[in-house]
């Protein structure tokens, strides 16, 4: 079955979630990937949304992190302060799935501002729950399309922390960046291309990156999406 680069990215992201794990999910690509995992190899994946839905089991993709279907299907529904304080902060959630407007080689993310903070070129939405997801989940997976508009050498603003000072945080931070071209993992603290999707050359990923992207000598190739994965994804996307 043929597939798009977005489908490959989403399938690759879904695969990193083991069955039974708990996953804090942002909206958009992260939510799609997490729901795909639940629909395929990880039926007991626990989806947690910052709106307070723990163990949500949506049958179609939610449009926001607070859709009614998430509340209706959740094992437990709690307040927003509780989801951050009792569930996220203590480090009891296995994986945080995040998107990013801009990120750097350390996995720092900027979703706040482009240009000067006081006199911005573009004002972005801001932090939301991302800083705490990045701080407190046992590990973080970033899902983002790879381009020089996103993969920056130097961020104008650090909204959530990557491989920097994590001494006050309970989690290990970003360990995986999954893009439409491949997968990056930290090597000596710097995100390095360790895997490419089928048909992608490492040079394409280097070209799409705003810092001098290191390429692993042990570069592997992602197995193509299976028919089952694609069927499940397309069914979800409705």
């Amino acid at each position, binding site marked *: 079955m043929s597939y798009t680069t977005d489908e490959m990215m989403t399938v690759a992201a879904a695969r990193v979630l083991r069955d039974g794990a708990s996953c804090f999910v942002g909206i958009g690509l992260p939510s799609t990937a997490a729901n795909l995992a639940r629909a395929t190899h990880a039926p007991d994946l626990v989806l947690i949304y910052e709106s307070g839905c723990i163990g949500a089991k949506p049958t179609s993709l939610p449009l926001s992190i607070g859709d009614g279907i998430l509340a209706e299907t959740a094992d437990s529904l709690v307040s927003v302060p509780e989801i951050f304080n009792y569930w996220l902060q203590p480090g009891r959630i296995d994986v945080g799935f995040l998107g990013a407007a801009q990120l750097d080689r350390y996995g720092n993310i900027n979703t706040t501002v482009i240009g000067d903070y006081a006199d911005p070129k573009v*004002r972005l939405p801001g932090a939301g729950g991302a800083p705490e997801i990045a701080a407190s989940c046992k590990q973080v997976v970033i899902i983002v399309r790879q381009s020089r508009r996103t993969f920056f050498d130097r961020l104008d603003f650090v909204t959530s922390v990557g491989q920097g000072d994590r001494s006050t945080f309970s989690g290990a931070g970003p360990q995986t960046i999954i893009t439409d071209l491949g997968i990056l993992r930290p090597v000596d603290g710097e995100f390095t291309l360790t895997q490419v999707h089928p048909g992608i050359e490492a040079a394409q990923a280097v070209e799409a990156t705003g810092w001098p992207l290191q390429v692993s000598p042990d570069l592997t190739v992602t197995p193509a999406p299976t028919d089952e994965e694609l069927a499940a994804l397309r069914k979800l996307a409705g």
Partner: protein
Amino acid sequence: MARIATLAEAVGELVHDGDVVALEGFTHLIPFAAGQEIIRQGRRDLTLVRMTPDVIYDQLIGAGCARKLIFSWGGNPGVGSLHRFRDAVQHAWPVPLEIEEHSHAGMANRYVAGASGLPFAVLRGYTGTDLPKHTDTIKPITCPFTGETLTAVPALNPDVTVIHAQRADRKGNVQLWGITGVQKEAVLAAKRSLVTVEEIVDTLEPRPNAVTLPGWVVTMVAEVPKGAHPSYAHDYYVRDNEYYKAWDAISRDREEFQRWLGEVAR
């Protein structure tokens, strides 16, 4: 016991120029009707507080009601940017907008501290981010037992909090269910509160996952069916996603927005 009034009376009495005003509702139960009534009544110089200033705050900001925004995520969920918010921050249109920016956990805990009668809350967060450089309501605090450094944020105690709920009874006891967000904390933290409801009923039947706010902690209640539209009210109506998408086009252009405002303000 909360007083029951019309929306216009309640906004007129409870929301004053220069007030610190929180309209809360996390995706669900956003008090749109009350927000638009604030626009209609022409309030000015408000400090608007909200974790997720979405379309309703874009409308208030575009209408020139606000001089400051305290928030943690300002987007049009599932659609993109808030263009009136951006225009205010980037170009001071129609008036300059001061911002005080936090993360969701920081904002939630600021309401918790406010509801708890404490001057501050403690959390793990902000360390290593650029937020503390620009927001002076983020400070380090040391644990007196372990010596560990954590982060403190000050309480939020709005002059008035406005929320929308499914139901109230005739004594002004309020019941909301589904995703209940930070509404309880925002009401309990505030000096005054206004709750708009889908309907006023004789008896509040107990139901799963419901939060009940007793009437004696609510100042006024107004019956406003569809008062959360275009957001949703669980078991009443679903989110009007088309409205959110249409807002993108309206809000991108100052003239389009002015036309919209002329219609709403009438």
